[in-house]
């Protein structure tokens, strides 16, 4: 039994089809027949043009959205509600604005009825770990965008999820902050080896971070290709871009992606596009 669970994919999308009825009454197919298995402990990035349904796929894995056809299994179990193994990093701010940083970080523990003293000390430890020691009593609006992301990472990580779902979490940050956050994310991930499903429209970011890059095409979405990224770890996201292998991979995947982008255009960097 234990072996069977170990072999089951962390997330498996099985023939997912999503359709919406448009206001005019026509049926709009967002994605048709997507199947994808994500092995436990891997970092998988999904790239694709805007409007290709990347976020829809992520929300299906989160249990926030249930596709009308197909199903999602998590460690071999079909998903029937909110994914109990996963936390979510959103593109937009998702911290409770009326709670201090400390109260935000310990939120998941409070929901799990962990005693307050224990939750607080654990949250303090996490804030030190993400470099926010001394900011415990600030409110989210008093922090910079990068600091809010750090708090969100601590909030998502503190509950010990086996899966982390990320929807362009760093898209709203400036380039420098973004690289720092990407490296810190890789550092945290390297220690824990959690399963990560990372959505982005930035192919460079996808290759720099992930073990595997999945290219989604649009209208209706289907999987255009999947590429293993055999770049050495630990990685530095700024340095890895200069690696000749990185450039070769980039060229190969871009070749696939370009056709899609030419057809539909890509999300503007930092824009509010959710790709849904």
């Amino acid at each position, binding site marked *: 039994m234990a072996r069977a669970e170990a072999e089951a994919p962390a997330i498996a999308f099985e023939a997912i089809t999503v359709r919406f009825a448009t206001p005019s009454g026509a049926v709009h197919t967002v994605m048709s027949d997507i199947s994808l298995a994500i092995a436990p402990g891997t970092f998988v990035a999904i790239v694709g043009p805007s409007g290709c349904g990347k976020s829809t796929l992520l929300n299906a894995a989160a249990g926030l959205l249930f596709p009308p056809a197909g199903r999602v299994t998590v460690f071999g179990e079909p998903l029937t509600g*909110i994914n109990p193994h996963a*936390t*979510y990093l959103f593109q937009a701010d*998702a911290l*409770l604005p009326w709670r201090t940083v400390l109260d935000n970080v310990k*939120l*998941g523990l*409070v929901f799990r009825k962990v005693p307050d003293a224990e939750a607080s000390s654990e949250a303090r430890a996490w804030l030190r770990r993400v470099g926010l020691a001394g900011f415990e009593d600030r*409110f989210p609006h008093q922090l910079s965008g990068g600091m809010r992301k750090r708090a969100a990472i601590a909030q998502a990580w503190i*509950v010990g999820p086996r899966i982390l779902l990320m929807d362009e979490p760093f898209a709203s940050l400036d380039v420098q902050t973004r690289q720092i956050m990407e490296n810190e994310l890789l550092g945290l991930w390297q220690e824990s080896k959690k399963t990560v499903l990372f959505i982005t429209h930035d192919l460079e970011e996808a290759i720099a971070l992930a073990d595997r890059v999945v290219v989604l095409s649009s209208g209706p979405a289907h999987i255009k290709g999947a590429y293993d990224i055999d770049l050495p770890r630990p990685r530095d996201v700024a340095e890895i871009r200069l690696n000749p292998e990185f450039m070769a991979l980039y060229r190969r995947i871009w070749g696939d992606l370009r056709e899609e982008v030419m057809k539909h255009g890509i999300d503007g960097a930092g824009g509010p596009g959710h790709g849904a």
Partner: protein
Amino acid sequence: MAREPDLAVVMTRRRANRGLVLALQIGFFVASMGAWELLSRAGWLDPFFFSMPSAIFARMGEWMWSGYIWGHLATTLIEAMAAFAIGIVAGVIAGVALARIELLAAVFDPYIRVMNALPRVILAPILIIWFGLGMASKIALGVSLVFFIVFFNTFQGLREVDPIVLNNARMLQASDRQLMRHVYLPSAAAWIFSSLHTSIGFALVGAVVGEYIGSARGIGYVVAQAQGTFDTTGVFAGLILTSIVVLGIDLAIERLERYLLRWRPEA
């Protein structure tokens, strides 16, 4: 470095503005009261209909020194506070229930519209028949006013919760009750607070109008008595006293609101 002097200039200018505004506000008060007083004394305004500030303030002082007004003021305040408290609790409960239960909202929507469209003062006679001439009928009238304001704001506030914040809490395994406590209610707090400013005024309107129509105590009764003897000075004194009380309570609510909503970025 270059920024600091600019900042200092901005700060002093703002302070100077505030001082100027306050001076002009006081100036306006003195000028309008002075004009009223002079026009009355000169006979341009008939003191029988318009009274004059010196008489009004003298009357207010007399009421306070003799102790005549305190009992009436206390009655009105107790009625208003009770109406305020009951109206808030009932409004929040109803707002939460209807925002959470789709069917309930659909069924009660037309009834709530009709009730809200009804001028509530018309209810006063029937409330006096039901609850008598004492405090209960005034409280009931105040509740009928406060309830709808709080209800609509709570309902709207709960509907406008940021879906991303909500989904984040759900991903962190919040139960329905925890979502209500940690996400929905704090999110609606800003709406509920803005409704409290309006509600406190209406709670007092309920009390005073109720007393005016039929009672033996309260500011509304004092004003009705003064009107019955064509005592314009008494009517004005009661009116000004009521405004001062509402202003005081409103300032207290504003301070409370500023503390409880301190998490919001300053606009």
